[in-house]
């Protein structure tokens, strides 16, 4: 059987499963469409949250980022998990108690203001739309690599699948599909990692293998890796970073942003009780950790594997001849994600860090520049081939990558469509809409959200890498502080909340646009995006945390200068704080 047939079989089987779930879990009411009827088991919700959260970025890109950056990129590991601690303690249980359907619902009621609700809707839509573009392009890439279809065709197939289960089933269909998608993606991620760990360290748990002995050399794996990359002019894999302030702020921005992403928050509206929301956050983190503890092992092992493939005799000896390169390099060369150029004409592949500091040694060895460029996103996708695993593992990786992208895309699309149908249409434009009418409106807005996401996926605005930073920055600077103050303070009033959100949002946007281009149009940036230009060494990607501080500060100052919060709203704050009581769990 050819590799193409195997891939088709795996992807086809997983899609058939999602379709089956879609037909089984149709939504009959708005409560089912928005919050899956509110009866999802906490462990199951944990699993669905993990799939909702772990996107194409987690599945495909994260290990590559860590492999390239080593210790410095541990920020992604801490930042994308630490946010769940904030979510579990500062937001999820109280918003569950509040018992309505969307994030702007709470902001609108708590700050007794339609403006606050609309600002929240705007933040939600900007954050979620930017995020969904990345998922759709990720799905398109996976399709084109594994199913040999054109990228746009791949995108349309992905859109049809999501359309089917998200529009029919709403949150209910999405929840059960996400549970299935989690199983597919975690198996796909773990199996190749186990084999690689066995090959390199004789340990079958990759997370332990990372800190074990490298069988071939008898040295600890990380020391061996440090030694190899050092010989080729790269920074030590475990080397400390100098700009600790930026590392702290970047991690903090990722954490606050994670806790403030609406598509993750609404998952906690689906469990039966407040106590379940607390447990569920723990389970979500367990299921996320299964991948996040494996990822750093995959990163270091894949980096070492790559180096030993190019330098089979060791980094101080001759590298391999281009004609003898393994098959997987040839496969990925066809996609353009690995590129080779024989600069010194010796027919061998030289792969090293081409910097002035290493220039002398490179010249002495007769090298005329680095000859191999490897796109870091291929690391996870190429893992089974690098480790010589059978064809079915590659098929599994294809299905896993698609599961990661589609599950996140569906969660985001639901957050967007419920903000439109529930907050804009029912909340502002036509409050008298019937239950049936609102359900139809939710489906129609989901339909349009998918069309827009697909269009943007086909014509990515040329800043795909930056948009994720934007999504986290906005969630961190606008949504998270508003929600937290709404629960933990009875003093913050509508003026404070609205001005706080706007101040956090605008300061973050201005700082990002200053360095990355106004509205991301290339060449329009005011200052070059280099560490020397950054204010106090803070990169634009780390600014979300500062935006959050600005939001808090403005909200408190303005609130203290203006009127007290009305008594009925203070009672609302009381009611979300205590699990017991008739104040919460209102069905509309």
């Amino acid at each position, binding site marked *: 059987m050819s590799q193409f047939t195997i891939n088709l079989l795996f992807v086809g089987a997983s899609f058939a499963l999602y379709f089956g779930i879609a037909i089984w879990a149709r939504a009959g009411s708005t409560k089912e469409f928005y919050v899956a009827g509110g009866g999802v088991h906490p462990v199951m919700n944990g699993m669905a949250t993990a799939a909702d959260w772990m996107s194409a970025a987690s599945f495909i890109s994260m290990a590559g980022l860590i492999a390239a950056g080593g210790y410095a990129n541990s920020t992604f*590991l801490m930042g994308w998990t630490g946010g769940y601690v904030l979510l579990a303690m500062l937001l999820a249980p109280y918003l569950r108690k509040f018992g309505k359907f969307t994030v702007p619902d709470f902001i609108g009621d708590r700050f007794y203001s339609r403006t606050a609700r609309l600002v929240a809707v705007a933040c939600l839509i900007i954050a979620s739309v930017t995020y969904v573009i990345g998922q759709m392009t990720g799905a398109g890439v996976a399709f084109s690599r594994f199913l040999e279809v054109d990228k746009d065709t791949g995108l349309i197939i992905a859109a049809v699948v999501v359309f089917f289960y998200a529009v029919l089933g709403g949150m209910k269909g999405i929840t059960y599909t996400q549970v299935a998608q989690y199983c597919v993606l975690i198996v796909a991620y773990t199996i190749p990692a186990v084999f690689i760990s066995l090959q390199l360290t004789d340990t079958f748990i990759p997370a332990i293998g*990372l800190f074990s002995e490298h069988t071939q050399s008898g040295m600890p794996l990380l020391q061996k890796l440090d030694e190899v990359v050092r010989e080729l002019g790269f920074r030590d894999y475990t080397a400390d970073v100098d700009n600790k302030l930026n590392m702290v702020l970047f991690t903090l921005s990722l954490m606050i942003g994670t806790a403030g992403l609406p598509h993750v928050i609404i998952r906690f509206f689906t469990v039966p009780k407040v106590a379940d929301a607390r447990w569920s956050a*723990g389970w979500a983190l367990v299921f996320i950790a299964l991948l996040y503890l494996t990822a750093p092992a995959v990163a270091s092992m894949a980096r070492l594997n790559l180096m030993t493939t190019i330098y089979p005799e060791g980094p101080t000896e001759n590298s391999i001849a281009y004609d003898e390169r393994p098959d997987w390099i040839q496969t990925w060369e066809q996609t353009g994600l690995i590129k080779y150029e024989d600069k010194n004409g010796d027919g061998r592949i030289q792969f090293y860090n081409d910097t002035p500091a290493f220039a002398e040694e490179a010249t002495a060895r007769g090298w005329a520049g680095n000859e191999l460029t490897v796109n870091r996103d291929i690391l996870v996708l190429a893992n089974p081939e690098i480790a010589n695993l059978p064809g079915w593992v590659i098929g599994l990786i294809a299905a896993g990558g698609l599961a990661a992208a589609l599950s996140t895309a569906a969660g985001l699309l639901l957050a967007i469509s419920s903000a439109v149908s529930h907050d804009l249409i029912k909340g502002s434009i036509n409050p008298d809409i019937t239950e049936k009418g609102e359900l139809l409106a939710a489906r129609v807005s989901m339909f349009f959200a998918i069309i827009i996401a697909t269009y943007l996926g086909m014509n990515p605005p040329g800043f795909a890498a930056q948009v994720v930073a934007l999504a986290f920055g906005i969630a961190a600077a606008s949504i998270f502080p508003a929600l937290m103050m709404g629960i933990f303070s009875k003093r913050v009033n509508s003026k404070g909340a609205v001005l706080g959100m706007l101040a956090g949002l605008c300061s973050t946007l201005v700082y990002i646009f200053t360095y990355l281009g106004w509205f991301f149009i290339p060449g329009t940036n005011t200052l070059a995006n280099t560490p020397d230009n950054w204010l106090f060494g803070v990169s634009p990607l780390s600014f979300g945390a500062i935006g959050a501080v600005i939001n808090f500060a403005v909200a408190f100052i303005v609130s203290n200068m203006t009127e007290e919060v009305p008594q009925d709203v203070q009672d609302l704050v009381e009611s979300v704080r205590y699990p017991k009581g008739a104040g919460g769990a209102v069905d509309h």
Partner: protein
Amino acid sequence: MSDHTENQENYWKANVRLIFGCLIVWALVSYGFGILLRPMLAGIEVGGTDLGFWFAQQGSIISFIGLVFFYAWRMNALDKEFGLEE
């Protein structure tokens, strides 16, 4: 609903205290051991590297899981203790 009792007040204070304690540990394992205090922990070796590296890539995540479950267990117990469970 507006009868704001002393019992409720005490419950909320206990919750805020618990959150505060948990967040201190949260910050210590990630920003502390994983980033800022790493040079101080450089002498403690773990599997070919130092303790700070371990915390940054694994230890913090494992601690986060422990923290969230600990909080859920304590709070669910507090709900009952104060008679405020759902």
